[in-house]
C-alpha cells in the first residue's frame, strides 16, 4: 500500500468513529437529554419499564437510522451525478428528481386506494427516473450541448412545473395536503421505521452498485474520450449509473421527502479531503453523508425546543450559500 492509501484508509476509520459519535449525539440529544450510560445500557440490557430506554429504542433509534441512510443515499447520488455529468453543481434536487419523485408519491397516495408502504420506493423511483430522463433530454438537446447551465436551467424549469402541479393538487385535494405537508418540506418527523424496512434492500443495492461502478466514474469524470480509450462502454455504464442514482434518490425521497442540497455539499467536502478518485469518494460520501444528516437532524430537534424545525429547511439554508460560493469560484 502506498502512503496515500494508508492515509485514506485511516481517514475512513476515523470517519466510522465520527459516525458512531454522531449517532450517540443524535440519540442522546432532544427534549429529554439522556445520558450516554443509559443509552448504552438500553442496547444490552433493555428494560421496557424504563421510560428512557423506551424513548431511545422506539422513537430515536428509528429516526437516527433513517437519517443516516437518507444522508448516505443522497450524498452518494450527488457524487455519482457530479462525476458522470462532469458538473460541479449537479445534485438530485437541482436536477428536478426530488420534486419529480415527490409528485409521483403524492399522486399515487391520493389516487390509489390501498396505498401501502411496499410500493412507496418504487413509485418514487418511477417519478424520479421519469424526471431525470426528461431533464436530461431537454439539456442534451439544448444548443451548445449538455452544459452546466443547460442542465440546471432545465432542472429548475422542471421543478417549477412539477411544483405548480403539486400546488394545484393541494388546492383541489385538501386532505392529502394535510397529510403530506410536513413530508414535502423534507422532514424526518413523520418517517416510519416500516418504510425503512421496505427501502433498505434498495438502498443496499444502490450503495453496492455505486461502490462497484466507482472506478469507471473516475474514468468518466476525466472525459468521455478518456473513458472510451480505457475500454469502457460509456453508454451502458451511464445507464447503470443513472439507475443507481435513481434508486438512491428515490429511497431517500420515500423516507424523508425532498431534502435539498445534501448531494451537492457532501461530495465537494469529500473531494477536498481525498482528491478525485471515486473509489475513495464514494465510501467517504456514504459515511460523511450519514454523519452530516445525523448532525443536522440533531440540530433541527435542538434549536427551538420543545418544537422542532423541518430538517429539509436547515439543509437548504446551509447548502444554498455553498452553492453560491461554488458558482463564484468554479464557474468562469
Amino acid at each position, binding site marked *: 500500500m502506498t502512503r496515500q492509501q494508508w492515509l485514506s484508509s485511516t481517514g475512513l476509520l476515523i470517519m466510522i468513529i465520527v459516525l458512531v459519535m454522531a449517532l450517540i449525539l443524535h440519540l442522546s440529544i432532544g427534549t429529554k437529554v439522556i445520558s450516554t450510560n443509559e443509552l448504552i445500557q438500553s442496547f444490552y440490557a433493555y428494560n421496557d419499564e424504563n421510560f428512557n430506554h423506551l424513548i431511545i429504542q422506539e422513537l430515536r433509534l428509528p429516526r437516527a437510522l433513517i437519517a443516516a441512510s437518507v444522508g448516505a443515499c443522497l450524498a452518494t447520488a450527488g457524487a455519482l451525478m457530479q462525476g458522470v455529468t462532469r458538473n460541479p*453543481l449537479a445534485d438530485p434536487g*437541482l436536477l428536478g428528481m426530488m420534486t419529480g419523485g415527490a409528485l409521483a408519491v403524492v399522486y399515487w397516495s391520493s389516487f390509489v386506494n390501498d396505498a401501502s408502504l411496499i410500493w412507496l420506493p418504487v413509485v418514487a423511483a418511477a417519478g424520479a427516473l421519469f424526471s431525470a430522463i426528461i431533464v436530461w433530454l*431537454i*439539456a442534451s*438537446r*439544448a*444548443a*451548445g450541448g449538455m452544459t*452546466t*447551465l*443547460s442542465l*440546471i*436551467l*432545465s432542472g*429548475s*424549469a*422542471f421543478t*417549477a*412545473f412539477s*411544483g*405548480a*402541479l403539486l*400546488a*394545484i393538487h393541494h*388546492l*383541489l385535494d385538501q386532505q392529502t395536503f394535510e397529510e403530506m405537508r410536513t413530508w414535502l*418540506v423534507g422532514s424526518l418527523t413523520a418517517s416510519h421505521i416500516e418504510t425503512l424496512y421496505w427501502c433498505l434492500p434498495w438502498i443496499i443495492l444502490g450503495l453496492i452498485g455505486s461502490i462497484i461502478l466507482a472506478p469507471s466514474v473516475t474514468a468518466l469524470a476525466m472525459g468521455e474520450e478518456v473513458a472510451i480509450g480505457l475500454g469502457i462502454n460509456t453508454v451502458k455504464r451511464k445507464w447503470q449509473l443513472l439507475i443507481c442514482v435513481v434508486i438512491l434518490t428515490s429511497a431517500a425521497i420515500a423516507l424523508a421527502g425532498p431534502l*435539498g*442540497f445534501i448531494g451537492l455539499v457532501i461530495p465537494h467536502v469529500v473531494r477536498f479531503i481525498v482528491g478525485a478518485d471515486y473509489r475513495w469518494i464514494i465510501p467517504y460520501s456514504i459515511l460523511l453523508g450519514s454523519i452530516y444528516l445525523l448532525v443536522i437532524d440533531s440540530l433541527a430537534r435542538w434549536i*427551538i425546543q420543545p*418544537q422542532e*424545525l*423541518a430538517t429539509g*429547511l436547515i439543509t*437548504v*439554508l446551509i*447548502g*444554498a*450559500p455553498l*452553492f*453560491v460560493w461554488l*458558482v*463564484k469560484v468554479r*464557474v*468562469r
Partner: protein
Amino acid sequence: MLIIRLYKQHISFKLNILAVAFTGILLLLLISILLLSLINGTYQLSLQDALLSLFSQKQLISDPQASLIIWDFRLPRSLVAILSGALFAISGAILQNMTRNPLSDPSLVGISQGAALAVVVLTILFPEYIDDWREISAFLGAILIASLIQLLRGKGRPLKFILLGIGVAAFISAIISTLLTYGNLQSAMTALSWLAGSVHNSNWHDVSILGVACLILTFAGIYQARVMSVISLGDEVTIGLGINLRKTMVIQLSISVAAAAIATSVVGPLGFIGLLAPHLARKLTHSGPANHLLLTALTGAILVLIADLIGRTLFAPTQLAAGLVTSLVGAPLFAYLLIKKQT
C-alpha cells in the same frame, strides 16, 4: 417603414409599420379578452349587460347584479392582471437585454424572491404595517437581492448571474418556508395565498398603484430604448459609442427591479411571464426596441389575463392562482426555448 420627424428633428423616430399594426392587433386582442374575462366566471353575465354596466347605463341593464360584479370584482381583478403582466414583461425584457441572456427572468434570478421575502417577513413578523409598507418593502427587498447578486457576480459572464440567482432563490425560498411553517398561522395563510401569485383579492387601490407604476416605467423604458439596442451589442461597443455604461446599467436595473418588485408586491411572484413575453413578442415581428417594449408589455398583459381567466374558470368553483397557470404553461415553453436557443 415610416420615419417621423418632429420639432426640427429634435424628436425623430422610425416606425416599422408592421410592428405598429401588430401593436394595434394586440391591443384589440387584449380588449376582447378583457370583455371575455368580464362576462365569464361563477356567475355568468351577458355581453350586453357587461358593456352597459361598463358605460354606466344602469337603467338599461337586465341583470341587477351585473354592475356590482363588474365594478367591484371582475374589472379591478382583470386590470390588476393586465397591469402586473405588463410590468413583469417590461422587467424581463430589460433584464434579458441587459444581461444579454435570453433566459433571464425576474423570478429565475432572485428578484421576485427578494420582493417575496420582504413581504412575507412583513406579513408574519409585523402584520400591523403590511398595508402601508408592502410596496416599498418589496422594492427594497428586490433591489437588495439584485445588488447582492450583482456584487457576487463581479466581472463574470451573464451565466454566473443566472446560476447565482438560482442559488440565492433556493436560499430565500428556504427562509420563506421556515417563516411560513413556524409563524402565526393566520398570517402564514395570508402570505401563502399571496405567494401562489394570485390576483383574486384585487381592489381599486391595487389598480391605481399598478397603473401609475406601469405608466411611469413604460415611459422610462421607452426613453431608455435607444441605449438598450446599443447595450445588446456588447460592453465594448457600448463604451465605444460614448455611453456611460455603469450609469446606464444602474438605471436599467432599477427600472427592471422596480417593475418586478411593484408587480410582485401586489400579485405575488408570477413565474415565467418576464421570460416568455419578450420571446413571444419577438416571434411576432421584428421592430425597434421602443416598439418591442410596447409589444412585450401587451403580450405580458394578455398572458396574465388569460392565465387568470383559465385559473378561475377551469376548475370552478375552485380558483387556481394565476401564478400556477403561468408556471404550468411557462415551464414547457422555457424548455422549448432552451432547446431552440441559438447563441
